[in-house]
């Protein structure tokens, strides 16, 4: 990755954004499950202790308390580790928040492999698939710190549940992503004609490097950053696929049911083209340095380049 690009952790941007929004929106409540020091909701607690609730390590309770608040006109944001929100609060999120279409923002901290040293028990590689399957849920996976506050502000305009996936570690900040953030809209990070790469989260930065690498090899890749996985910008996807005739998806998530699944559903039903999915395979991961894990599990520039070559070879 380029060293010239500033690196900021999404969790830090999240903590600051909550404080900023909290100054303007008296309805905002922030709830955490004993990980506020990690997720950075501690910043909101410091500024607005009367609007912050630490419910202890009880993600289900966290979600339902917020649901009750949402029925009373408040705008709660619940924050915990993404894997535990996805697994331990699924009943509450599905049966109470989504079924009742309650405007609760579910902030999944430490998404993907970002809780790298803690190992498989903490690494969140199924959250997008789970959240995406829930009716009424909006699913966001921003790439860059500058997207976080706009994403939260857009989410607060809706009367619906929104899941927003965050990460632990500093990642490249891509200022252009912070402009005009819209739920349901993708962004073209780079125009191209030979292949479409669709990415979300941190992988958009890595895909951007891959695009430069491919350009040096004479391959013109179009890179679509989809921070909004549900709703998915099918118009942008199909338009690009019709132009390039081949698609590769890249996500820090299992290849089952996440961004790749969403893209496959749209392409399969509307405009089938050769498709390759990059993500963690159907396996448990392990402890280690973040960058080493990303490489080991195939979330790398080299992997993207390989898959692009493969998918282009499949074009008729």
């Amino acid at each position, binding site marked *: 990755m380029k060293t010239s690009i500033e690196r900021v952790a999404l969790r830090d941007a999240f903590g600051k954004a909550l404080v900023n929004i909290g100054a303007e929106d008296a309805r905002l409540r922030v709830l955490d499950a004993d990980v506020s020091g990690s997720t950075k909701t501690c910043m909101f607690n410091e500024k607005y202790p009367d609007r912050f609730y630490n419910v202890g390590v009880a993600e289900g309770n966290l979600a339902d308390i917020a649901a009750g608040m949402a029925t009373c006109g408040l705008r709660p944001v619940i924050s915990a580790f993404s894997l535990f929100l996805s697994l331990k609060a699924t009943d509450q999120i599905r*049966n*109470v928040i989504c079924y009742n279409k309650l405007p609760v923002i579910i902030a999944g901290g430490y998404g993907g492999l970002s809780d790298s040293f803690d190992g498989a028990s903490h690494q969140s590689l199924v959250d997008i698939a789970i959240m995406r399957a829930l009716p009424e849920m909006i699913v966001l996976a921003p790439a860059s710190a500058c997207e976080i506050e706009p994403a939260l502000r857009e989410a607060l305009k809706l009367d619906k549940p929104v899941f927003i996936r965050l990460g632990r570690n500093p990642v490249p900040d891509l200022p252009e992503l912070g402009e005009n953030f819209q739920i349901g809209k993708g962004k073209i990070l780079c125009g191209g004609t030979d292949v479409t790469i669709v990415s979300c989260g941190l992988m958009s930065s890595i895909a951007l490097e891959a695009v430069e690498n491919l350009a040096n090899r004479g391959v013109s890749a179009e890179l679509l950053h989809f921070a909004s996985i549900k709703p998915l910008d099918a118009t942008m996807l199909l338009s690009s696929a019709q132009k390039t005739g081949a698609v590769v998806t890249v996500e820090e998530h299992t290849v089952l049911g996440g961004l790749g699944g969403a893209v496959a559903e749209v392409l399969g039903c509307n405009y089938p083209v050769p498709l390759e999915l990059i993500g963690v395979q159907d396996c448990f991961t392990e402890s280690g340095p973040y960058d080493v894990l990303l490489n080991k599990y195939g979330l790398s520039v080299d992997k993207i380049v390989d898959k692009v070559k493969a998918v282009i070879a499949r074009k008729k």
Partner: protein
Amino acid sequence: MSVCTKNKTQKYTDAQLQAMAMEFRIKVLDMLHAVGSGHWGGSASVAELLTVLYFDQMNINPDMPADPQRDRLILSKGHAAPMLYTVLARCGFFPESELDTLREVDSRLQGHPCMNKLPGVDMSTGALGHGISIGLGMALSAAADKPYQTYVIVGEGCLNEGSSWEAIMAAGKFKPSNLTLMIDYNKVQLDGYSQDIMPLDPLPEKFAAFNWNVAPRVFDGHSVKDVRESLSWAQQQECGPKVIVYQTRKGKGVESMEDSNKWHGAPVDDNTYALARPELEATMNKWKEINEN
């Protein structure tokens, strides 16, 4: 102004409310018999609790079901929905004729309550173990100068769920003074007696250990007088969440259907219906006579 609002335009006697609860049981029996499914036992168990709440206690206005200042009721044991629907319809939240659509396609009366379909339902329930957490969130949302009451009704099933105990622990921490938990303790669940399925005793001691205000005795959940007295106790508690344990009988009102897990969710067949309805009517008429005398 509806009869259901606080500062009630109509004050009911104990006997009147007892008769109304029996009338609601009759309607629920009719509904369950007609549709061939639904939960008689748990519905009959909460008849007096819901009747007293909606016709004597709660500040609600059927003309403004979403009034931010209204009192809230969460029927955490959502399978008792038919009784809730019957009470809400009598309050005037929707036409009583609609009760006959229970569990039918396109009906607003789902098998378990859905707040976005039916006016008067403050929270959708069905999956057990949610009500106390949600009620805690509602209670904490009330502005200090505009408090409303939040009531949560749970049964044994809800208290089997670990999530309930997360909420009980959290309520002991946040100490809302406008949260009242009412335990419909009929001691029978789907599979049998709760003592065999998952013993819950001693409930008052458990709640005391979680820093709740615990009602000074177990109240009779089928006695309007007792239910009124219990809620009067709750109103007098100034700090922290309140819990009241009610001794109830699953299937209350039809002797052959009482205290049996068979009538948790079995369809009300023709023979049972033919025997049960006159029994309910006789009890209702007895209360009406008491009231007139």
